[in-house]
């Protein structure tokens, strides 16, 4: 797994590449905890290059989102597709997160 971050005005765009599973989920959580500690509240997670997500990955996603929500923040997901989308559909996660087809539309929705 690889995580890249970029700042678009007030929103932090986090691009996750590779696999989000039991091994990498703690790394994902640590990264987000650091960003939250830096005062970031608005996040768009770009999952275009995420090839696999396990239940542990879902838990990490959910735990960070809950923490951000506690700080009056918001996590939006962008570019979910393939097997990851299937997992989201089966587990009902699709109804929990705001999801967008692109980072741009997510940005528009969040800032607009």
């Amino acid at each position, binding site marked *: 797994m690889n995580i890249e971050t970029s700042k678009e005005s007030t929103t932090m765009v986090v691009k996750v590449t590779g696999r989000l599973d039991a091994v990498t989920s703690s790394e994902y959580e640590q990264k987000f905890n650091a960003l939250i500690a830096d005062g970031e509240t608005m996040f768009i997670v770009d999952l275009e290059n995420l090839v696999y997500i*396990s*239940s*542990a990955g879902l838990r990490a996603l959910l735990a960070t989102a809950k923490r951000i929500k506690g700080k009056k923040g918001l996590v939006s997901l962008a570019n979910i597709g393939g097997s990851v989308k299937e997992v989201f559909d089966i587990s009902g996660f699709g109804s929990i997160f705001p999801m967008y087809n692109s980072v741009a539309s997510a940005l528009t929705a969040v800032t607009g």
Partner: protein
Amino acid sequence: MQGSKSIATKLILVITLCSALIFAVTLGYNYYQSRLVLEKELEKNARNLAMSLANRVERELVSVSKVTDGVARSLETANYSETQLHSLLQATLANNQEIYGAGVAYEPYAFRRTSRLFAPFYFRKNGKINLIPLEASYTDLPYVYWDWYQIPGELGKAEWSEPYFDEGGGNILMSTCSIPFYEASGGVRHLKGVVKADITLASLTELISSVKILKTGYAALFSRNGMILAHPVKESIMNETFFSMAESRHDNALRQLGKKMVRGESGFVLYKSEGGTRNWMYYAPIRSTGWTLAVVFPEDELLENVRKLSLTMAAMGLGGIFLLSIAVIYIARSVTKPLRSLVAVTEVIASGNFDVELPSTRSSDEVGALTNSFRFMITSLKEYIRNLTETTAAKERIQSELKVATDIQASLLPRLFPAFPARSEFDVYASMDPAKEVGGDFYDFFFIDEHHLCFLIADVADKGVPAALYMMVAKTLLKSEGQRLGEPELILSCVNNILAADNDSCMFATVFCAILDTRSGEVRFANAGHNPPVIIAMDSQKPQYLALKAGFVLGPIADSVYNAERLTLKQGDTIFLYTDGVTEAKNPEEQLYGENLLLQALQDAPKGNLADLIHCIRSEVNRHANGAPQSDDITMLAITYRGAGAAIKEN
């Protein structure tokens, strides 16, 4: 031991060889230079000695030739009567002890016209002076034909004869000095006769033969022809010449040397004697006679002192090198001794004993530093091994605890099949293989009332101990709430709210919960984010995934809404529940088993016995994994509806 030995050996070898080399070069140079200086000095001394000896001989010869010359000049200036002549000769002999015999030989008819030859000769014998008339004694050949007479007459100057043994005089080595005298008449000088003086060379040769240089060095005298006149070896006197010696020895250098001597040259040469020893020789001519005087000394004796000195120095040097070697051995030992003891101690350490005492280090040299490093290493190793032991013990404890936990978890799931031997309306079979010692998957089935069987499968997020703990809570809640509420959607939402109350870590479980009415085959179910089950219908060719509403996972968010759905199982229909450990089993190439392969396997699997079906799927998954490690818990549950009639029949 081997190492320390070689350090000492190497040190000794290198230092000894180097110092020996330096010493040898110094000694050699010293010897060479001393020899050069000595040779120069020697040449000077040899020349001086030879010159003084030559002068001594010369002086003696010159005194004789002067006396002879005086007689000759007297005879030229005055006419001596026979009586006067006898008196002159007697007086000459009496006044000059070194002269053995003196005489005058006249040309034919030159003394008086009456007698042809006249030659009175006086000589000493037994302390008396005797007269011998030479014209009478030379009976075979008149004296005028003898060399001693003819050569000075011809040359017109004084002539010394080759030395000879005077038979009459008792084998005394003699030489004769002959000087011509003339008569002037009418402006023309005519030879009138020759004055002859014999001298014995005994005292001269005695003097020369007695000269000793060093031990065996000597002086020698050679005649004009190379004849040996004086030599320490008496036998060679008058018996050998330079040239005869050169001939017998085939020594060309000796012959050349002889030629130089005959020419009246002087020089300093090195030559090999008959015995093969090298000798230095200085030779100088004796002008008046053309003889040669030589001083000879062997090189060995000359260099003896230098040799002795060199030997002494060599002995001292060897002693020095020996002392040096002892010093080197001492140093090498003092260096290697602590090393050796350190080696012995490290061998003990290497065998696992860390409590061994290291050798004490007084010095702060490299060995001391090494010892301190070892001490530090031992402390670190002890610390490390203690940590390792503790960690291993802790790990073993955890392992044994986990083993117990595995047993506890396994005992929580219904494992006895057939689970309800009294109930023939349905068959049920299930299995759970945790990826780790304990898992997050679970299944359950229990009767709510006589006709309603609740069955469920769940997958807690993640694996291991946290998932297992969560699983315990979820399973207990699902059973208690299931028995209390009796409706799948109510069970899920109620349990969800309880779980969500204190769930900061957002642990969750996906749950498929269903209730079978054993009388009708109707199944009411609700889903909390779990994989859709597979329906294997009797009247259909292919197994199918059940289309259902997703529903959010159980646990993280309170007040999630779950929808109740329903389906009816006909007699012989089977519902197959599984967790994603089945479909996401990976092979070494990272390929997932997948939903399609599962469907195919279910279609091909033997029908009739659920245990066979589940074991078949399990082995298919294993076959796919092909040795790759199991990454997630693998759980399956299947129920086949046999129909209410079966129960009635039974009853």
